[in-house]
Structure formats: structure tokens, C-alpha cells
């Protein structure tokens, strides 16, 4: 489907309208989506982000919890191409770092030593790690000459490389929203179809329950539920716990929309035909009704993902969501919560930029998907 759909390659001698008529719905949707430039850009950015998260251990110069005692709270290391004489260097290099301790406040400050140059190496040897937990290697995308270390986004107060942690954190931050959305899709679609198909008392009860849940404001409900995740849970359970909390707020709205569609389809000819053909209720729901709600459900899902990622970030930021030893963008930003710390080390706010780029890209894509879902609507 993603292959280039070019109207010009269709048989000649037809008008554009005739050629359009020959395209499948999927092709029409793709055309619609592609017309939205921002959506396409958003999708490309998201693909890059997810790839980076996938290859985090290779792309990151250091492992997630590696501390560098000599480099506590260092500002971002600037990559240089030209030295003080104006001479060009490839690969790029970084300057040495001189640490000074203020005799009054005991605060360490750092100044670059421009007379020392340390070259960056691509695909060099560094900290050993297990790629995807499968095979051991010590190759990293980039490393710097010993004894210098490279911190593209600076380090935190225990000397951990923020750039590496952002990459590792992306794994959780980018996936927890997806897991949450899938959960609420499954729950919402199933309950919505049941509610709409059977109607009657069950429908009434389900609708009242959804009404109650959606009457509790989202953020307070998230906070209260996240606080209920026990502190002694294992990281993996906390992760899914948070995903459940995130989906708890959204499944209701989804179920309502699915119910609406199913109500409209329940007495459609093809459903009645299926019923006369002695199909079981389950078969009618799974084979006939669910597929018809699919495009609508996908739109809702795409639009819901950014909210969930923001939710995780906010919860972890407050210390209620993902917590150490797991790392997510919210966990990283949690360190920036103490304003005194932040004022000394403003680079701790860097993960926010990754959050911003992700959310904006998802919003762009969501916009495009919404337009594409109904390719027959007038533009």
C-alpha cells in the first residue's frame, strides 16, 4: 500500500476522476494522508524517534546507569569542528574540561580547556553491553578519546550522561502510551460493541458506568490511581500498572463512540443476513461489526497517544508514575522538579524538548489520519 501511488501510472485516456475511482479505499486514504505535509513530516520524525529508542544501547555512548564521578553536573559538551586556529577537523572533536571548586560554596564549575583536543570516533569501542539483551558488544555509534568523556546534553547530579538516559528513557516513554492505547482500544472496542449490539439493561448499566468515570476529571483521577500502584512492585509490573492507569481514563470515551457506530450498523442488511445465516453473536461481532469500526477506532487511538505520553511524563515528573531504577523522560524531568537544582543546571530540562517533538509529531499525524479516515469527504 505504501508503494508510490501515482495517478499518472494508471491507464491513460482517463480523467483524474476516473483514475481516482479505480483506486482502493486504502490507496485513497494514503493519498489523502500524503497531502497533509505536516502529517508526513510528523510521521517521519516519529519513525526516527522510535528507531532511536530501539537502538538506544548502540546509539548511546554510555549505559543507562553508568556514573562518571569526575563529571558530576557538567554542562553539555559542545561538539567542535574548528579549533582555535580555525582549522577544520573531521571527525569532530571536543575540548578538555577543567573543573574548579568554588572555595565558598563548594560548588564545582567547569571550564573548557581549549588546548586539549579529544577526537570523536564513530563505531568505536566503549562500555560493553548486550544489544537487545541478546549478543554482547562494546561498539557504540560514537565515543571520544580517553580519558575525556562526551556528554551531549550534560550530566545529572550523580554524573550520569543525560543524552544516553534520554535515549533509554525513550523506550519507556514512547511505548507506555502505545500499550495504554492498545489496552483502552481492546477494552473500549469490546465493551462498546457489546453495549451497542445487545442493548437493553446491559447497555444501560455500561453507559452509566462510563458516565461516572468520565465525570471525574482526568488529571486528578490519574494522580489518585497512580498513587495506588504499590511502591514494592517490580519495574515491569509498575510499567503495566501505569499503562492500565493511563487507559482507565480513555476507554470510556472510546467505548461510547464504538457503541454509536454499532447502534447504526446493528440493523444493517449485512448483519441481518448474517443472523439469518445462523451466525453466532460472537461471530457477528468479531467478523462483521468490529471490522466496520476499525478506521474510526484507529483515528481515536492516534489522537489519544500523545495525551497518554503526556500523562506518563506528568505522573513520573511528580514521582507517581514510572520510578527509578526504570528511566523515562518523566523520571529524568523529575530531577528538574527542584527549582534550585534546575537553576544551576538548566540542561536538565533538555528531555522536555524530546517530549515536545514527540507530542507535536503525534498531533500532526493524528490530524492527517483524521482527514484520511474519511477519504470520500469533500476537501
Amino acid at each position, binding site marked *: 500500500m505504501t508503494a508510490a501511488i501515482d495517478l499518472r501510472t494508471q491507464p491513460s485516456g482517463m480523467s483524474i476522476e476516473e483514475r481516482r475511482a479505480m483506486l482502493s479505499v486504502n490507496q485513497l486514504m494514503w493519498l489523502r494522508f500524503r497531502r497533509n505535509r505536516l502529517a508526513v513530516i510528523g510521521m517521519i520524525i516519529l519513525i526516527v524517534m522510535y528507531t532511536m529508542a530501539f537502538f538506544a544501547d548502540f546509539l548511546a555512548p554510555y549505559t543507562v546507569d553508568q556514573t562518571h564521578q569526575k563529571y558530576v553536573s557538567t554542562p553539555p559538551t559542545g561538539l567542535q569542528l574548528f579549533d582555535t586556529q580555525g582549522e577544520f577537523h573531521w571527525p569532530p572533536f571536543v575540548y578538555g574540561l577543567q573543573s574548579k571548586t568554588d572555595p565558598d560554596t563548594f560548588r564545582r564549575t567547569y571550564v573548557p580547556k581549549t588546548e586539549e583536543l579529544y577526537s570523536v570516533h564513530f563505531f568505536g569501542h566503549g562500555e560493553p553491553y548486550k544489544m537487545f539483551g541478546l549478543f554482547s558488544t562494546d561498539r557504540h555509534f560514537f565515543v571520544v578519546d580517553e580519558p575525556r568523556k562526551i556528554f551531549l546534553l550534560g550530566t545529572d547530579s550523580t554524573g550520569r550522561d543525560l543524552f544516553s538516559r534520554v535515549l533509554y528513557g525513550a523506550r519507556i516513554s514512547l511505548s507506555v502510551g502505545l500499550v495504554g492505547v492498545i489496552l483502552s482500544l481492546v477494552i473500549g472496542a469490546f465493551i462498546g460493541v457489546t453495549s451497542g449490539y445487545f442493548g437493553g439493561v446491559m447497555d444501560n448499566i455500561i453507559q452509566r458506568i462510563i458516565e*461516572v468515570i468520565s465525570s471525574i*476529571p482526568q488529571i*486528578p483521577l490519574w*494522580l489518585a490511581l497512580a498513587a495506588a500502584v504499590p511502591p514494592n512492585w517490580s519495574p515491569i509490573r509498575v510499567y503495566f500498572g501505569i499503562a492500565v492507569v493511563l487507559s482507565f481514563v480513555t476507554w470510556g470515551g472510546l467505548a461510547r463512540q464504538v457503541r454509536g457506530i454499532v447502534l447504526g450498523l446493528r440493523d444493517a442488511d449485512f448483519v441481518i443476513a448474517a443472523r439469518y445465516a445462523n451466525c453466532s453473536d460472537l461471530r457477528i461481532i468479531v467478523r462483521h461489526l468490529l471490522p466496520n469500526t476499525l478506521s474510526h477506532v484507529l483515528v481515536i487511538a492516534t489522537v489519544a497517544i500523545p495525551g497518554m505520553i503526556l500523562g506518563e511524563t506528568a505522573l513520573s515528573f511528580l*514521582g507517581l508514575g514510572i520510578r527509578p531504577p526504570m528511566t523515562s523522560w518523566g523520571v529524568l*524531568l523529575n530531577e528538574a522538579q527542584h527549582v534550585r537544582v534546575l537553576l544551576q543546571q538548566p540542561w536538565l530540562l533538555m528531555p522536555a524538548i524530546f517530549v*515536545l517533538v514527540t507530542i507535536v509529531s503525534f498531533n500532526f499525524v493524528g490530524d492527517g489520519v483524521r482527514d484520511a479516515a474519511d477519504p470520500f469527504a469533500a476537501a
Partner: protein
Amino acid sequence: MVRYILRRILIAIPTLFMIAVVGYITMELPPGDYVTRYVAQLEASGQSGARERGAVLRTLYNLDDPTTVRFAHWITRFVQGDFGDSMIYQRPIRELVAERLPLTLALTFPAFILSWLIGISLGIYSATHQYSISDNVLTVLAFLGLGLPGFLIALALLVVTWRVTGNAYIGLFSGEFASAPWSLAKVLDLAKHLWIPVMVVVVTGTAWVVRVMRGNLLDELRVNYVQAVRAKGVPESTVILKHAVRNAFHPLLMALGGVLAWLISGTSIVEQVLGLPTLGPLFIQATLEQDIYLSGTILIIISFLLVLGNLLADIALAWLDPRIRFD
């Protein structure tokens, strides 16, 4: 119309009760309770009589009763307007809320008015100049405003103002004014501290209103009656402002139903980050420290405002748009 309103109010009553149940259960979900922690804290600091004090507090707050009994106690007192005492502050919850409510509203209400005024005007401009450069710039800005959570904008602004002015505007007042009597200087100091939260809330709020207003108005401008009005030779500004905008406003009116609750709780995390003594941070603290009566009360007040707001919005919409009345 009266029947419609009565029916809606009757439906709202059981909903409110169910909300109280769900809200209360949620608050009781976290393992442990406040007093157990409090006692552990006292013991850790080596105070004598911690256990006895804990036992007194447990009976005072009915912590040893079964959940159902405790809920029954609490909800009967709640409907009589007695919210009970906060365990953290050991003061009546009513006082705590009353203390913080004015400042919360002083922050969120102007922010709400500003963001809706700016948002609606920019939305109308954006929709009537679709795909122009200014529309595209506004669209990108709105997406940025929607993408960045308010608390991060607040932190960034704190860093920037600190870099520029050398002051960190956390809390309500600078140190020297905190306990000083009211004076012009103190008011100015307050204003210096409040512009950050107000601006953050306005930025995020405006972004959303712009998007909704733009989308609605674009949809509305495609409808045939707009063509008809234009064909009659009505000036374009009247076509837009008097005919299209009026109808495009309906979805926003629905959203207005959520505003009552939003005024209280919509900006909790921003307020928390900036250390403001408002209701949001109080709720977060109560949730974290399991002061169940305090967090439960605030949660139910907010939910109640949401139900009430939606009811008012529905009534207003039914009054404005006769098509909805007979559903």
C-alpha cells in the same frame, strides 16, 4: 424545556452518588494509611507515646472501621456540608479549601477569560485566512502550545527569568514580603510572581481554543446557509461574525461545561511546580500522603463541578439550539 431540565437534574443525582463511591474507593486504594506513616515517622524521630497518639488518631478518623462503615460515616457528614478534618493539617477541610479557593480562582479565572478571548479571536482570524502565512504560523504555534505540558513551560520560564533578572519567582511573594503587611510594593511583588502561572495557563489554554475555533468555523463556512447569506449581498464581516461564528461556537459552549472544574484543578501541576498555595498542590499532597478525607473531598468537589458545568452547558445549548431539545 422545564421537563428536559428536570430530567437532567434527576439523572445527575445517582451519577453524583456513584462518583462519590468511585472517588472514595480510588482514594482508599493505596496500601497503608496516613496514621500508620505518621506513627512510623514519630517513632523514627524518637518521640515517646507515638503508638498511643496513633491509636487516638485512628479512632478519631475511624481508620479501624471497615471501608463501608467509614464511607457511610463520611458521606452522611459530607452531604450535611461537614467535610471533616484533614489528617495532615489537623484542621477542618472546609477551612483549608476556603483559604485556598480565592487564590486559585484569582489565578485561573483571568487566565481563562484571557485565553478564550485571545483564542476565539485568533481562531476566527485563522479560519478566515486559511492557508495564509499567518494561519500556518498560528497553526504551528498552537500545535507547540498543545504539545508542551504547562509545567514544563513554567519551569523553562523560571529558568529564563532567573537568567535575565537574577530572581527565582517561586511561590507568591519574595522572602522579604512573605509576612510583611500589604503595601503597594507587596502587590507589585505578587504581580511579578503571578504573571508566570497566568501566562503558562493562557498559552496552553489559548492553543486549544484556537484549534477548536478554527476547525469549527471552517466546517461552518462550508455549509450552504453561508453561501445564501453571501448571495444576499450581506457584508463579509457580518456573514462571519453574525452567522458563522455564532454556530461555530456551539462545540465550545459544550467545552465550557468543563471549565468550572478546570478552574479548580486544571492547572494543578503548574501550581505545584511554582509552589503556589492553591487547591491543586493541596490535592497532590493529600493524594501522596493518603489524607483520604482531604483528597476525597477535593476530588468529589471537582467532579461535582464537572457534572454541574455539563448540566449548565447542556441547558444553555438546548436554549440556544432548538434541535437538541427533543432528543
